[in-house]
């Protein structure tokens, strides 16, 4: 979907168009994510926590973005919002041309199923199910027939080089293998975005590298990848880094300029 086709159904304000136009420096690319003034507040026992205080973010198809920030910066909340697990109190969120911020629970579930592939820090595989069945799961909820599910799940597992581990349960797999199962599960329904939350948080550094190489390959193949992390060396794999602080975007850099700034930012991020 091109920028032009997005415009009309969205009914964007002139201001919004300016933001989008600013972000859309590469003409002809599709907009996957457009947020405008997203606010999210929690009531924590009488005390109001303002996790997001107005986030404007636009992400194009095929981008490989890292979202960074110290704990409490709101990056988890932003991640949940982008992943349609949570809805903002105020502001708009457009995912692939659909206004998500006002959707019902079931509509959000459908969007999560079709548009988003999650990769979690703790893998979040079903412990009693085989790798194959874990990968099948999103297709079950998409209403895909059993044979088709198995075929596509095998294909996805083959993509992450786990074709010989399909019938293993998570506890029979190493951490890196588990995360690759999770990646296969995230990819199996051909989502618009692959959303990874600290994907290497539970892995040692060599396995981390292995997983990052998988992401790299996927990004090269044209998969949109958004990754939340607090580790600068992991974020360095991404081609764009968004840094959140106190619920707003503190910086948003393409790779070239980010690499130069990394040295300056690193101490604060730790």
């Amino acid at each position, binding site marked *: 979907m091109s920028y032009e086709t997005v415009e009309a159904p969205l009914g964007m304000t002139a201001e919004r168009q300016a933001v989008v136009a600013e972000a859309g420096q590469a003409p002809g690319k599709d907009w996957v994510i457009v947020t405008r003034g997203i606010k999210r507040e929690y009531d924590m026992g009488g005390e109001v926590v303002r996790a997001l205080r107005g986030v404007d973010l636009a992400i194009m198809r095929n981008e490989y973005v890292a979202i960074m920030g110290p704990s409490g910066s709101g990056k988890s909340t932003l991640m949940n919002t982008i992943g349609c*697990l949570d809805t903002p109190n105020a502001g708009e969120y457009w995912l692939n041309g659909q206004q998500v911020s006002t959707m019902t629970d079931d509509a959000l579930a*459908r969007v*999560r199923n079709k548009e988003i592939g*999650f990769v979690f820090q703790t893998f979040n595989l*079903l412990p*009693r199910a085989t790798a194959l069945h874990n990968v099948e799961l999103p297709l079950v*909820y998409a209403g895909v027939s059993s044979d088709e599910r198995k075929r596509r799940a095998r294909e996805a597992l083959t993509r992450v080089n786990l074709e010989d581990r399909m019938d293993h349960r998570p506890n029979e797999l190493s951490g890196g293998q588990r995360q690759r199962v999770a990646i296969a599960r995230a990819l199996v329904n051909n989502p618009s975005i692959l959303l990874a939350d600290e994907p290497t948080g539970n892995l040692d550094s060599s396995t981390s590298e292995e997983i990052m190489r998988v992401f790299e390959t996927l990004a090269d193949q044209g998969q949109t990848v958004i990754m939340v992390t607090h580790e600068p060396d992991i974020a360095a794999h991404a081609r764009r880094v968004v840094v959140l602080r106190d619920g707003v975007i503190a910086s948003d850099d393409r790779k070239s300029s980010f690499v130069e700034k990394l040295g300056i930012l690193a101490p604060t991020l730790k």
Partner: protein
Amino acid sequence: MPFLDAIRLALQTIWVQKLKSFFTLLGVMIGVTFLIAVVSIVGGMSRYMSDELVGKIMAINSFEVRQRPNINIGDNSEEHQRELRRRPRIEEADVAPIVAALEPDIRYAAVGIGSLNAESKYQLKPKATRVFTVTPDYFDIKRMAPVKGRLFSPQEYEHGSNVIVIGQDVAKYYFNGLEPLGRELIVKGLPYTVVGVMETQGSAFGQSFDQFIVAPHTSPLNRLVNPHGLINSIIIQVPGQRSMVSTMENVREVMRIRHHLRPNQKDNFELQTSDSALEFWNKIKSYLVIAGVALPAIGLVVGAIVIMNIMLVAVAERTREIGIRKALGAKRRDIMSQFLVESATLSTLGAALGVATGFAFAKVISMLSPLPAAVELWSVLVGISIGAGVGVIAGVYPASRASRLDPITALRQE
């Protein structure tokens, strides 16, 4: 999620924790066991009552004109018994007017019954034996046939010959291994020649139906059995195509006139059908069925509460799984049906086990007692569907709690 996938998932989950699942479904299982067992035993008793007991005493498609019922499962109050005893007996003289009122194709048999001591050359110890004196159609109506020898000839009926047919027990007792045909039984000093031995009539409640002697109604025995021209009953068999009710009304009319009853007076005789004999049993049966359903219902309620609790625990234990499923696109409906199907499957399994143990229970009872337990298909279907229903009802609350979990909170659960 498709229904079959949901059931497969439920079965997997149940199988993984076999012991816990078994204890969970125990309540439903016991409830259904009792349901099946009670219904089977009551059904068996019912069949026993109608086929064995009443069926052996009453002939098919027939009714009996009697002084009082011979099968009395109902009102046993002293007052009622006195009323029955005060009634006039049925007389031989009643037969002709009744027969005159019947259609020509309707068969009848006048029967006199008494208990007399008989003896034989081979068995000097006399024994009280039931003696029947009957008119020719009796054997046909009762569908009794000889295994040995023959029935009475028309001449024997006409002349009142000293001939008898006997039941198997009588043959065994008095002739003790000898061929009874052509030998004699002595009753009150007079010898009677055995011309036939009847096929076995079976028994009910431990009482044999094979201990009898039958003689023509013209036989000298008739005077001993039915003194003063009194008889026990007139059996009237109505062919299938004729109305039993209208025939009974005709006979009732004749009897009321003969007994000089005024319109406001009740009948002082009995027109007994197999239905009227079973009437009281049917009343008891309905109470038994109600009790047999009410008691298991308590078990099922307890079973439902157990399942609900275990499902609530399961939802708590599997919060993270629910979070994962929701993140991957499970809708509320999917989560709801997953847990509903799980609890319904659990409960239906319990019901199925209950049906099996109920069967076994009924079998054991029918082996240890004379009651034949008949398992009825409807009770199996009712048992299974009650199981499924209990599971669904017990699962609604836990399943809806699961479906309403917030995915973020659920995913954060350790």
